[in-house]
């Protein structure tokens, strides 16, 4: 199968890869770029584990083809921390026990990060609506909601 050359920015770094058209963006990020923080769960858009931010939009990376990423600005969970300094949302997830096994966590973090950046004053009802998009089989969601609420305050610079 002939490959297509694609270049995009991944977490601030320019990336050039050659991919089969059928390769999803999630697989390109994981297998061609080696960033395995983006998880693939259901691979058909239901679980949200592969959620990333593409050109400011929070999207499922299993429902885009890598070849569609030409020129895109992409952010994955690896972009959140600065060295040992965690992102406010990551801090909040630790503090509120917003994860157990951790499989869904990158998706929840990027879902919360992307939507809170677009709407920093999101109220609880909107937050519950947004978070209903992703699946977690450990926490029962309440701790994720607490973490995102607290993370939102931290992102706004509130104590």
């Amino acid at each position, binding site marked *: 199968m002939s490959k*297509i050359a694609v270049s995009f920015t991944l977490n601030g770094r320019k990336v050039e890869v050659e991919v089969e058209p059928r390769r*999803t963006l999630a697989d390109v990020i994981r297998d061609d770029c080696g960033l395995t923080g983006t998880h693939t769960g259901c*691979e058909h858009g239901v679980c949200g584990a592969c*959620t990333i931010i593409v050109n400011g939009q929070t999207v499922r990376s299993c*429902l885009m083809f890598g070849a569609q990423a030409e020129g895109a600005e992409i952010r994955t969970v690896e972009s959140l921390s600065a060295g040992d300094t965690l992102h406010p949302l990551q801090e909040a997830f630790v503090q509120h026990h917003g994860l157990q096994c951790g499989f869904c966590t990158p998706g929840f973090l990027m879902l919360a990060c992307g939507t809170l950046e677009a709407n920093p004053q999101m109220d609880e009802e909107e937050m519950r609506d947004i978070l209903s998009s992703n699946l977690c089989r450990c926490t029962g969601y309440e701790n994720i909601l607490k973490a995102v609420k607290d993370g939102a305050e931290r992102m706004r610079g509130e104590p």
Partner: protein
Amino acid sequence: MKPAPFTLHRPSDVAEAAQLLTRFADDEVRILAGGQSLVPMMAFRLARPGHLIDINGLGELAQITQSDGAIEIGALVRHNDIASAEIEGATGALLKKVMPNIAHHPIRARGTICGSLAHADPSSEWCLSAATLDAVLLARSATGKREIAARDWFTGAMSTSLQADELLTGVRLPVLPEGTRFGFQEFSRRKGDFAICAALVVFEIHYGVIEEARIGIGGAEDHPRRIAEGEAVLKGQRPSAELFARAGAAVAAALDPMEDHSTKAAYRRDLACDLVEGALQEAAR
């Protein structure tokens, strides 16, 4: 869960996209817009197109244009775009009310309104809206343009009258006059799931009585449609709880609902009755 191999085409304008459709019409060619239904179907290999035509580069299709009492939504307008779009009349408010019921936020960030109309899932909120508002669907092929009324668009579950060599370039909706009342209610077991039944109602009140009543039902039958028997109950009547209950019952009686292993036809009929009544009350508030 990996799609089968295909050849990807990235046309630079609509004319080229239409030519590609004609060229590969015999080889399961599909249009790739938002991909939020097509890509899962490809992952399951329920769809195995030999060629995909990616129209995401066609900025001309990403527009919402308004003129002469009509709103045209291009094939690349995403569900979430409706939230910030300035759309005239009551139509804008209606679309903003319906939109958040579609799937989930990240799906709405990529998925397109016209993609939903072309996919024609019986539960689709946009298909219900198109049927209720008598939308006109705009198709383009290498040989010309065609306008298709919503009532002629849906030919069954996930099936439309769009031809293999045609591209859906947009959908035209009427500008509902300011003051037009509307209500939308759907039922699904979890937030973001496909609606088991949904009701969209639209009417105006002139001199205290209901005019221009529209009642659309989605999710119950194999495609959404207006239910004339329910609309007839409302015509020329004063809004009341008793009237709305009668309209709901008339709609339920007129339906021939789908049945599957988890949902009986009678359940969908009961739901339609309640959802119509609820949507009418919401509209009258």
